[in-house]
């Protein structure tokens, strides 16, 4: 699977900030005046890092992700990838949403191929063959080679999300943006997909920025957990580094004394220091 190979970053690249948010704010004009969602957000993500963003509803997590994806622009500050300002969406930053967003009339393979085609624009027969190969390889990477010719409605939620991940990865993004990717899945499928994502991340060395509500998911997967304060004017409250080595194993993680400390630190942030008033929603 030569297409999966990503050039190893040179030493100088490793130290340079890869994704950077510098003093980023975002406000919207509403009928009642200006509404500030994010305020003064500073974050550097290294190449190949797995970073999770956690916070209550309305804390601007999705806004932050949309800024990186280039769907929206900051009202103030700079969002850049490899020192290039992000101004619009691009295949170097692929988003996977909770609701899969696959085209229902296309098969799993066709959904992935569509993405590949849009990036590589194959013309010659050789190029087309190569593009088809890439789509197949990525379906295989997520363990769906056998279901390649099924339509989304024939697939389970977990399988659909794997197609969406394959589609995103097949476009060789520099950064994978995940917006609560497993939120809609049952616990067992969720755990399986977390394991698979971790495995894919280690094999492809893609940088991941993931939004989640789930403390255990964040600890299990991430290098760092970014905890957001509550909106309006949400910002980064604390960043927790999880220094546990990879590959990680779910059972062994819960046997590590540090696990309880990390877990309680996250819970304390979310339920004590930045607890949300129950009546908020």
């Amino acid at each position, binding site marked *: 699977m030569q297409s999966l190979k990503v050039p190893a970053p040179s030493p100088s690249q490793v130290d340079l900030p890869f994704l950077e948010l510098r003093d980023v704010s975002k406000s919207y004009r509403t009928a009642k005046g200006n509404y500030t969602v994010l305020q003064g957000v500073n974050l550097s993500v290294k190449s190949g890092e797995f970073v999770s963003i956690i916070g209550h509803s309305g804390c601007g997590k999705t806004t932050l992700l949309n800024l990186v994806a280039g769907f929206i622009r900051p009202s103030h500050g700079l969002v850049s990838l490899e020192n290039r300002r992000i101004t619009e969406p691009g295949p170097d930053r692929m988003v996977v949403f909770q609701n899969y967003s696959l085209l229902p009339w296309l098969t799993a393979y066709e959904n992935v191929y569509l993405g590949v085609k849009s990036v590589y624009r194959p013309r010659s027969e050789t190029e087309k063959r190569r593009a088809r190969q890439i789509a197949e390889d990525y379906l295989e990477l997520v363990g769906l080679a056998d279901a390649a010719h099924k339509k989304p409605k024939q697939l389970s939620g977990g399988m659909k999300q794997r197609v969406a991940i394959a589609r995103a990865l097949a476009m060789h993004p520099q950064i994978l943006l995940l917006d609560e990717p497993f939120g809609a899945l*049952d616990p067992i499928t969720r755990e399986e997909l977390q394991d698979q994502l971790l495995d894919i991340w280690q094999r492809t060395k893609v940088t991941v920025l993931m939004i989640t509500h789930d403390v255990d998911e964040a600890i299990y997967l991430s290098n760092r957990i970014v905890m957001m304060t509550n909106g309006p004017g949400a910002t980064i409250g604390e960043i927790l580094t999880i220094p546990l080595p990879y590959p990680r194993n779910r059972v062994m993680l819960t046997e590590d004394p540090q696990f309880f400390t990390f877990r309680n630190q996250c819970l304390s942030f979310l339920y004590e220091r930045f607890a949300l008033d129950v009546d908020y929603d």
Partner: protein
Amino acid sequence: MKTVRPYLEIDHVDKVFRTERGAYPVLKNIHIEIDQGEFIAVIGHSGCGKSTLLNIVAGLERASAGGIILEGKEVNQPGPDRMVVFQNHSLLPWLTVRQNIALGVNRVFRHYSPQKRKAIVDEHLALVHLTAAADKYPHQLSGGMRQRVGIARALALQPKILLLDEPFGALDALTRGRLQEQLMQICNTHRITALMITHDVDEALLLADRIVMLTNGPEAQIGRILPVELPRPRQRMAVVNHPNYYRLRGEIVEFLNEQKKLKKQRELNRIAIAISRGNIEKINLGLGFIPLTDAGPLIVAKEKQLFQKYGLEVELQRLSSWKSLAEHIVSGELDGAMMLAGMPLAVSVQSNQLITTALTLSRNGNAITLSNQFNRPNSSPTDQLRNYVLTAKEKPIFGIVHPASMHNFLLRKWLIKIGIQPDVDVELVVIPPPQMVANLASGNILGFCVGEPWNTRAVLDDVGFIVATDVDLYDGHMEKVLGVRHSWAQQYPYTHLALIRSLLEACAWCQKSANREELVDILSRPEYLNMNPKYVRPSLCNPLWLTKEKTQYLPRFHHFLLRNKPCLLEHEWVLEQLIHCGIIDCKDSQGLLKQVVRDDIFDEAIALLDPNILEPEVQVSNQAPETIH
């Protein structure tokens, strides 16, 4: 004799669905007694029949056998005394919040005045903090708010029991957390009896008095019932910081993982067939171990192909708690396991499944570690600890790994020696070894008695210091033993002999100081202890770090080859301790010891063993245990 009937009794319920392909048994022999005001959580994987059980209690389905008794009367129809809150809230979309709640109230309390009925609706709107949203329609509400309407609607009918079917399952983790706290407050204030179906472990622990764990279907049964001994009123952060929390959580997670594993195995339809080779009746064995330094003999026998040498094919299974390990032996899922010294006796009495031990795997290897707060320079640690304990407002807690462990007995002896009464002045709580250091670091416990590498881990992580080792307290005591079912030993006598021989050779390997560095490397691997070797090395290779500054050479700290023959007198002493501490009750001590402790099998095993393998120590015959100083 129980004179008071339970408030709600789920009385030996079976449920069989008739399908086109024949009868499908969902639930088998489910029996739960619930007291008034009690909160019961039922946890299990999808498809295990949890919701079917709830529907039967609600009267939405009939049990195939057994039944539901509420306040002494059988119920088999739906009624306002049992209200259900479903995951999908099921509010009527064309009615406002107030109208949705009033619908049931107006029907059930028909005989009340309109004012009184309105008062009930208002009261319950306020209860779930939705007064301000009373005139909104469901589509104008968030998921969390809609679920609160569902709860208010159910409670407004003043049911005798509230039935919750994964009420928060569709909400994101953080919204779920907030609603759990709110539900907990309501249940506390109004002493509501509730039965909740969930697959969220933290939710069950926060809310429930008892957690009923269901096995996988078909024929789902009650696997375990876990009492949640966390003080009330509960508060999420106080709950997760409680020293018992991660032990309880670990028990449920482990149960669910086991069920998941079983399901996969069943799907693969893998039938383990006992293959015999020569006179060995069964060659493929499953042995259980706990990731601890003294699991060395089992791990080495595997890694050094010693099992193969004696004709065995062994799969090692790593378990995180002694309780779960015992269950695996009793149920027959494992052929044998390393056990704590007191477990063969304790498990035999407690489970009605007789356990046999014919090999002692190790001696010593434990220490008592205290929090660093008792290591100030001016006075002795024991004085500092005593002063603290005797003036503490709440009873301080010490950690042990299992009631039937030497750790329990050693810690008790040591505490008494320094003038602290166990159970009176301090409480001894069971905490799995991996959680000891975290609990010590967060100040939940003052200290613990545990095997390696956990004492070293506490010292090197700057959390605690070693105040005593078993070399000081009871040098040469029996620590880990090989335990198998008595019936298993009878069924597979030659397999048992081969197992003893291979493990004994592994013990000899572990004992040699020339092998200790390699032992450190093997044990540290991810599949075994999964730990940095720096934590594993000190107790095996010396010196042991007592504090971050002070070391001690303890060449006798781990014995793997010393009096490996089971000693009746030692087990008798252990039995006395078990009875004395109130862990078990035993009428026929001698009869029990005779069946559990099988030194005769050990003798048979070594009779044909190459004597060069063993150092002379092992042939020392029955020797009285050294007394505790």
